[in-house]
C-alpha cells in the first residue's frame, strides 16, 4: 500500500478511520440482528420442540414448568402426557446432555441426546434405539445396569459400560426428580437435573 504520507498520521485521522469502520460494522450487525432475532428465537424453540416431539409425538404443546429450569410438561387436550427434563451426566469423556421423557405414572418413555463427546461407534451406541429402547416403559425399580442379561434390568453395552452407566444414572435421576415433584409438590428437588454442580447458563 502506498500510504506513507506522513501528514496522514495524525491521531485524529487514525482514530476517525477506525471509528468509522466500527460504526459501519455496528450498523450492519445491528440491522441484521434486528431483522433475524425473532426468526432465530422461533427456530430455537422449534428445534427444542422438535426433539421433544420426537420423544412424545402425541403431545400438542410443551409447557415449561414454573420454577424449574428446562422442565416441560407435554400436554394434549389439557392432559399431561409426559414430563420432559433436561438431564446432564458425566460420561466417558465429557458431559452427556439429554432430554428424558417420563410418563406421569413415572415410567420412562425415552431419551434424546442433545450433545455428547462419547466415542463414536462405542459410547454413542448408547444413544441408538437398540440400547435406548430397553428403557421404554421401565420404572425406577428397573433402573439397574447389569452386564449379563437379566429380566427387567438394563443390559450394558459391551465395551461402553461407562456410557451405559451414565445414561442409566441420568434417567434414574430424572425419575427420582419427577417422583419427588409429583409426590411432594413443586418445591421439591433441584431446579434443574444436574448431578454435577455446574454454573447455570445465563
Amino acid at each position, binding site marked *: *500500500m502506498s500510504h506513507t504520507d506522513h501528514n*496522514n498520521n495524525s491521531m485524529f485521522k487514525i482514530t476517525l478511520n477506525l471509528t468509522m469502520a466500527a460504526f459501519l460494522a455496528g450498523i450492519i450487525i445491528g440491522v441484521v440482528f434486528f431483522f433475524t432475532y425473532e426468526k432465530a428465537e422461533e427456530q430455537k424453540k422449534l428445534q427444542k420442540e422438535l426433539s421433544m416431539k420426537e420423544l412424545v409425538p402425541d403431545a400438542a404443546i410443551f409447557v415449561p414448568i414454573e420454577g424449574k429450569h428446562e422442565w416441560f410438561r407435554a400436554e394434549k387436550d389439557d392432559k399431561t402426557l409426559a414430563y420432559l427434563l433436561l438431564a446432564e451426566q458425566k460420561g466417558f469423556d465429557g458431559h452427556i446432555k439429554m432430554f428424558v421423557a417420563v410418563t406421569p405414572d413415572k415410567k420412562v418413555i425415552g431419551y434424546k441426546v442433545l450433545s455428547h463427546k462419547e466415542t*463414536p461407534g462405542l459410547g454413542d451406541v448408547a444413544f441408538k434405539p437398540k440400547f435406548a429402547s430397553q428403557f421404554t416403559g421401565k420404572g425406577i425399580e428397573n433402573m439397574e445396569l447389569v452386564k449379563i442379561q437379566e429380566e427387567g434390568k438394563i443390559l450394558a453395552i459391551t465395551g461402553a459400560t461407562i456410557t451405559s452407566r451414565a445414561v442409566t444414572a441420568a434417567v434414574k435421576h430424572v425419575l427420582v426428580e419427577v417422583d419427588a415433584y409429583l409426590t411432594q409438590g413443586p418445591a421439591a428437588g433441584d431446579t434443574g437435573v444436574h448431578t454435577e454442580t455446574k454454573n447455570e447458563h445465563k
Partner: protein
Amino acid sequence: MNLWKEFTKGLVAENPIFRLALSLCPALAVTSNVYNALGMGVTVLFVITCNNIVVSAFRNVIHPKVRVPVYIMSIATIVTVAMLTLEAYLPVLFRELGIYLPLVVVFAIILARAEVFAAKNSVIPSMIDGLGMGVGFTIGMVTIGAIREIIGNGSFFGYQILGSWYHPPLIIILAPGGFIVIGFIIGVMNLNEKRKKDKSEKAEMAAGGTI
C-alpha cells in the same frame, strides 16, 4: 489481468489448505463428514469473497496504521451477519459448525487474501480471487471430508455406501486420523507434482536441452 487465471490459481496451485497451509483448523475439525465440510467451505467462500470485495472497495480510505484492525472488523462483521442468518434459517448447520463458525474470523486465509490481494487490486479481480480461494478451500474441505467419511464411516453425505461387510476404522474420523489423512493427501499431491516435474526434466534432457 486474466480473471480466469486469478480464479483457478486457488484451486490447486495455491490451494489454501494443501499448498498455502493456511486455515488448517477447520480442515481437520469440521471434516469428519462431507456435509459439515461443505457447509464450512461455503461459509468461508462467502466470507472471503465478501471481505475481498469490501476491502478492495475501501482500500484507499483505510489508514495503514489501523489496517489490520479494520480488516478484522470487516471479516468479523461478515461472519457475525452470516452467523445471525444461519441461526435464523439453518439452525441445524449452525449447531454442527459450533465454535468453528466464530473462528472463521481468524482463519488466516481470509486475512491473508485481504492483505495480499484485495488491498492491492480493484473490486472485480478481488472478488474473483476470493471466489477462487474460497472454492479451492471448499474443494479441499470436501476432499478431506469425503475421504474421512467414506473410510471412517463407510458413508457419503450420510448415506451408507459401503455395505455392512465394511467395518470402518473409526480413527479416521477422530483427531489422529484427520491429521494422517491430510498428510497423505498432501503427499499424493506432491507425488503427482514430482512426477510431472520429472517428466518435463526428462523431456528437456531428451530434447538436448540444458542438462
